[in-house]
C-alpha cells in the first residue's frame, strides 16, 4: 500500500519531465546562447576588468571586495592556498584567458561537460572575487553554467557529437527544469513587487529608472503607474499564462519586451539578454532546429 502510494507520486513527478519534442533544440540553443552572452559580456568588461579583478590594479584591494560578501569563507581559503604556494601571480595571469577558452569551447561544444565545469568554477572565483560589484546577471550566469554542466548540452550540433559519435537519445525533458525555474523566479518577483505599494502608484518605477544622467524623472506619474502595475501583473501571472498554450506566446512576447525596455532604460544589457535567452530557450518555438532535431532522433 505504502509502496503503491510512493510509486504513484513518483509517476506523477516523472510525468512532469516527460519529453515534449523540443528538448534538442533547447539544449543547443541554451548552450550557444549562454556561451555567446558570457563572451560578449566579458568583452564589454575586458578593458575595465583589472579594476575589479587583478593582482595590483583593483579599485580597492581584492580582499576588501569579497570581505563582506557571503562567499568570503571559500574565497579567503582559496586565496590563502594560492599565496602559500606562490601561485597568486600565475592564477591572476591565467584565470581570465582560461575562462575565455572554456567559454569558446562551450560554444563549439568541445569537451562540453568539462569546459562547462571549468567555466562555472572560474566564473564563481573571478566574479565573486568582486562580489559587491555583482548583480543579477552574474547569478543567472552561474545558474546557466551549472545547467550547461548538468544538462547534456554538448550532445547535439557540437564538436563532441562529431568526434565522439555518442548515443543521441534524450530521455528526459531538461527544458522543463528551466521552465519551472523561470516560473518560480517571475512568480516570486511579482509577489515581492506586489507587496510594495510603490509598484502600484508609480513610485518604484520612478526610483528604478531615475538617474542623474537621464531625464526619465520627468515621466508622467500615470505612465509610471501603468508600467508598475503592468510589471507586477505580468510577473505574478507568468506561470499561469505561460502554462496555457493559448496565452504562452503573448506572455513571452510581453516579457521579452519588458526585458528589452530594462536594457534600454536602465543599461542592464547583459542581464536582459540573459533573461531573453532563458525565455526563448524555455518556451520559444525554434522551428528550424526542431525539424533538424527530428532527423537527429529518428
Amino acid at each position: 500500500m505504502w509502496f503503491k502510494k510512493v510509486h504513484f507520486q513518483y509517476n506523477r513527478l516523472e510525468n512532469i519531465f516527460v519529453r515534449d519534442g523540443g528538448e534538442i533544440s533547447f539544449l543547443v540553443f541554451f548552450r550557444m546562447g549562454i556561451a555567446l552572452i558570457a563572451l560578449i559580456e566579458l568583452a564589454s568588461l575586458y578593458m575595465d576588468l583589472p579594476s575589479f579583478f587583478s593582482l595590483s590594479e583593483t579599485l580597492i584591494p581584492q580582499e576588501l571586495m569579497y570581505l563582506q560578501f557571503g562567499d568570503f569563507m571559500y574565497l579567503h581559503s582559496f586565496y590563502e592556498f594560492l599565496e602559500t604556494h606562490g601561485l597568486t601571480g600565475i592564477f591572476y595571469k591565467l584565470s581570465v584567458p582560461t575562462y575565455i577558452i572554456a567559454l569558446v569551447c562551450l560554444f563549439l561544444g568541445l569537451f562540453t561537460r568539462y569546459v562547462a565545469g571549468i567555466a562555472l568554477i572560474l566564473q564563481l572565483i573571478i566574479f565573486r572575487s568582486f562580489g559587491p560589484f555583482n548583480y543579477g546577471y552574474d547569478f543567472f550566469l552561474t545558474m546557466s553554467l551549472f545547467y550547461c554542466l548538468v544538462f547534456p548540452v554538448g550532445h547535439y550540433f557540437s564538436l563532441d557529437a562529431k568526434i565522439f559519435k555518442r548515443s543521441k537519445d534524450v530521455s528526459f525533458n531538461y527544458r522543463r527544469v528551466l521552465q519551472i525555474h523561470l516560473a518560480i523566479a517571475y512568480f516570486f518577483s511579482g509577489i515581492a513587487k506586489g507587496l510594495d505599494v510603490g509598484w502600484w502608484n508609480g513610485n518604484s518605477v520612478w526610483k528604478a529608472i531615475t538617474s542623474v544622467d537621464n531625464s526619465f524623472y520627468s515621466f508622467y506619474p500615470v505612465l509610471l503607474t501603468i508600467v508598475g502595475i503592468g510589471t507586477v501583473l505580468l510577473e505574478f501571472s507568468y506561470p499561469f499564462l505561460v502554462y496555457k498554450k493559448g496565452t504562452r506566446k503573448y506572455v513571452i512576447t510581453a516579457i521579452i519586451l519588458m526585458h528589452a525596455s530594462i536594457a534600454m532604460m536602465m543599461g542592464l544589457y547583459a542581464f536582459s539578454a540573459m533573461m531573453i535567452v532563458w525565455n526563448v530557450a524555455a518556451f520559444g518555438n525554434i522551428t528550424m532546429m526542431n525539424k533538424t532535431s527530428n532527423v537527429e532522433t529518428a
Partner: protein
Amino acid sequence: MKKKILVLFFTGHLLLIFFQALWANIDSYSNFHFDKSLRIPLLSLFKQNKYTEPYYILSGINTGYGFYGTHTSTEKYLKIAYLDANDKEIKSDRYFRLSRTNAIKRLEGYASFLTNYVADTEKLIEEDTTAASDTSPDVIRLRKRYQFRKDYVVKTLKWLGKREAETISGCTSYNIKLITIVPEDVWERKRKTKPKIYVVQEGTFPVQ
C-alpha cells in the same frame, strides 16, 4: 535508473529554488516592515544554511528573485574631487577610470551596496543603548562589530581615490562622496524638476 536519478535530482533542485525564493521574499518583507528576520523552522531546513550552502553557491541559486521588489532603491553613485594644497578642486570624477557602461553599472551597484552597508551599520549603532561603561561580552561584541563596519567604509572610500590621486600633479588630498537620489512621491513632485540628491557618506583623505 538514470531517469529516476534525474527526476529526483531536479525535483530537489527546483524545491530548493522554490524555498529560497519563498524565504527571500518573506525575509525581505519582514525586514522592511517589522525590522526583524523571521525564523521558520521548515524553511530554515531548505534555505541557504551551512549544509546546503556549497550547493547553493555552485548552482548559483543563492539569490532572491525580488528584482527591484520590496523597497526599490533610488540610484546611488560615488563622486571624487581631487584637491590641491589650498583645497581647490583640480578635477572631479564619477567613474574611477572605468570606461564601459558594463563596468560603470557595476560601480553603481557597489555604491548601492555601500549605502545599504552604511544604513545597516547605523542600525547596529542604534541598537547600542547601554552606557559607555557597560563592558558585558555582548555589548563589546556589538561595538566591535559596528566599529569594524565603520572602518570598512572609511578604508574603502580611502582606497577608491588613492591610486589616481597619486598620479595627479599638485594633488594633496581627495574628497569622496557617496550620493543617493532622494526618493520622492511622483504624484506630488514637480514633474520637470531635477531629482534632489543627498550625501550618505563623505570622507577627505590626504595623499601620502
